[in-house]
């Protein structure tokens, strides 16, 4: 987990830039028109929310090296905070409550990040479970958070920004996409700055970082804060753009593991990895179940198929880790390397010498 690539080399950057441009054009220009409601509402929107959450966790775990098993708690904090801002502060523009929700999540994150000043590794990981259970408990316990709704379930307000309401599958998708793109850009800027270097320094060698003058305390808490901020915003997307109703039980431990899973499968300390991991996490089980149903649906019931699928996914995770412990992104890079090399040989000479 220490030798993850840092996006610097010139050649890769240009190739990356091109790829990103193509992706963005497709995401904004093609998919909204070509995608079905199902694709947008049930695949892409949750994918975006999870990718953002994974990005947030990646900052903390992948870059700053602090393992957290409590991401779902920060998703929940974000979702419930946005709901309450929206509900209790009149005429508050939605964007403001979005950012405010992120900040609440960040504050809670910093609070639960305090143990990281003393703890490391799995000890820290397990202690973040305190956040997981505490937040879920508090949201269930205190009716105030869900506006005393008897069932504890809250309904999402409409997504409206500057008078435009993002309703319908396309609107919600575009809204999520924009939030994700902006957050990702900001995250990239952060990672390219000294703060990003400090994160990695912290992860790779805490003592050396301290001696050099990296402010450990501030950096750790910042990592928790920024990470929770992003995860909190992802929570808003998850709750308001995707599910449009949430209950505390939805933010359970499985969800936290799911997010951790995304960044490890995708590749720690890689933004592209987080995206790839999220795509894998969301799309792959769907594909697998569709495939299973199509091929074997007549023979077995959905339960049997589902269990077989679990086995397949489990085996795939292990297989992938064996093939490339640094995650999907490293695998992709490795496989793409010869091809890229062929195309960009002249370029690589000029930038490297």
């Amino acid at each position, binding site marked *: 987990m220490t030798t993850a690539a840092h996006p610097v080399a010139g050649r890769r950057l240009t190739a990356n830039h091109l790829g990103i441009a193509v992706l963005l054009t497709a995401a904004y220009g093609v998919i909204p028109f070509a995608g079905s409601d199902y694709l947008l509402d*049930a695949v892409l929107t949750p994918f975006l929310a999870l990718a953002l959450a994974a990005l947030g966790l990646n900052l903390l775990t992948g870059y700053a090296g602090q393992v957290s098993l409590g991401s779902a708690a920060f998703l929940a904090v974000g979702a419930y905070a946005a709901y309450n801002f929206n509900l209790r502060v009149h005429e508050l523009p939605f964007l403001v409550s979005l950012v405010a929700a992120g900040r609440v999540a960040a504050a809670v994150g910093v609070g639960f990040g305090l143990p990281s000043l003393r703890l490391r590794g799995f000890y820290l990981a397990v202690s973040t479970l305190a956040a997981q259970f505490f937040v879920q408990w508090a949201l269930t316990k205190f009716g105030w958070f869900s506006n005393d709704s*008897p069932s*504890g*379930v809250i309904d999402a307000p409409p997504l409206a920004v500057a008078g435009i309401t993002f309703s319908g599958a396309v609107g919600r998708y575009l809204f999520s996409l924009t939030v994700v793109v902006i957050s990702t850009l900001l995250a990239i800027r952060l990672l390219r700055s000294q703060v990003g270097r400090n994160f990695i320094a912290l992860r790779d060698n805490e003592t050396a970082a301290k001696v050099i003058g990296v402010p450990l305390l501030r950096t750790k808490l910042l990592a928790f804060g920024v990470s929770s901020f992003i995860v909190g915003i992802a929570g808003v997307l998850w709750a308001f753009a995707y*599910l449009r109703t949430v209950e505390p*039980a939805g933010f359970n431990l499985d969800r936290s593991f799911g997010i951790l899973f995304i960044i490890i499968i995708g590749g720690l300390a890689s933004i592209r990895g987080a995206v790839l991991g999220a795509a894998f996490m969301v799309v792959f089980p*769907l594909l697998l*179940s569709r495939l299973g149903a199509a091929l074997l649906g007549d023979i077995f019931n*959905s*339960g049997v198929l589902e269990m077989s699928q679990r086995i397949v996914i489990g085996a795939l995770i292990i297989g992938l880790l064996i093939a490339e412990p640094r995650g999907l992104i490293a695998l992709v890079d490795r496989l793409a390397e010869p091809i890229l090399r062929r195309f960009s040989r002249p370029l690589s000479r000029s930038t490297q010498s």
Partner: protein
Amino acid sequence: DEQFFPLQSYRVGPYAAGGTGFFGGFIDYLNLINIRDGGVNGVKLTWEEGETQYEVERGVEVYERLKSHTGVAAWNPLSVGIAYAMIDRITKDKVPLITVNHGRTDSTDGRVFPYVFPLLLNPYSETSGIVNYVASREGGADKLKGKKIVVLYHGSPYGKETIPIYKLLADKYGFSLEQIEVPHPGNEQQSQWLSIRRAKPDYVVLRGWGVMNPVALKTAQKVGFPVDHIIGNVWSNSEEDVIPAGDAAKGYVAITTQASGAEYPVLQEVIKTVYGAGKGNLEDKKRIGSVYHNLGIVNGILNVEAIRIAQQKFGKRTLTGDEVRWGFEHLQLDPARVEALGAKGLFHSINVTWDNHEGDGRVTFQQWEGTKWKVVSDWIAPDWAFLRPIIEKSAAAYAAEHNIKIRTSDDPPVSQ
């Protein structure tokens, strides 16, 4: 012509036992109608399952995937979380959402929730039904005064939903009340039961879920609380809840809207026609007639009858979701009709109207005998009149929050 049921089933994960029973029963009944009657007046019933593992987002995915199928009759998720996530969606898509025995209490108010049907029972009427049963055991409502009831509830929104109603009923009948939470999943309840032992209540109401139930019964035995004074709610009333507790569960009583057992004619027909043709859905035939299976059967009856009623108005063809909704809003099955359907004793009756989407289901109580449930009470009526204003108030608040115009009886029943 065909009428389609998208099924958000769950056959894997912690709640798989309930899911396989319920969806098994539902599918068994649909099969029965297809095989025996060739469908509902010639309209074939079809379905497709999507596994949700009881997870909301998977349920939503299945919704988005199956909603555009032609001839969707109704959604039956048997999951509070998934049901909640669907309310907006089905209202927009104008398809009924059936949450038999569960779901949002205030969706009983059809004036605000035109497409949601918490058939037979909602959490409030369940509560009232349980208190009425206790009263009957004590020999009348007046005997409740001075008694002590502890409610042991699951630490989730579901578990907490009835807290205020128990309080109201305690005030009304003058019994003293203590409500104790068991955090999810509830596999350790030592401290709760020690508190109960200290409180020395007359009854404990178990508002449990999943593994919490057998553990409660086991722990009750450990602290010496008499099991026949523990009364289970509607999610604590199945074989799955008692079998793991072994002997500790013998004598436990629980509420139900549908009796268990396979002796009812409709079940006999299912066994003969469906299982006889090798099309039975349950892998383990011993589970035929179990609580969840019978709930599935009853749910099947209610859905099919709603379609039948709607067909009388709109014609014997594939109906739209909105037309099926009309059928549900006129789903009135009196005991005679229930008997004609072969379900006498299985469930009592239902009487859904445009504004009462629950339909005044009656409840009964069963006692676990170690291998099977035995009905130990009459069909009891909850105190609907007492509950209705509370429900209306809550529904009105929802309407206000969501800018929903409250429907009146003059509003056109269906846009045709």
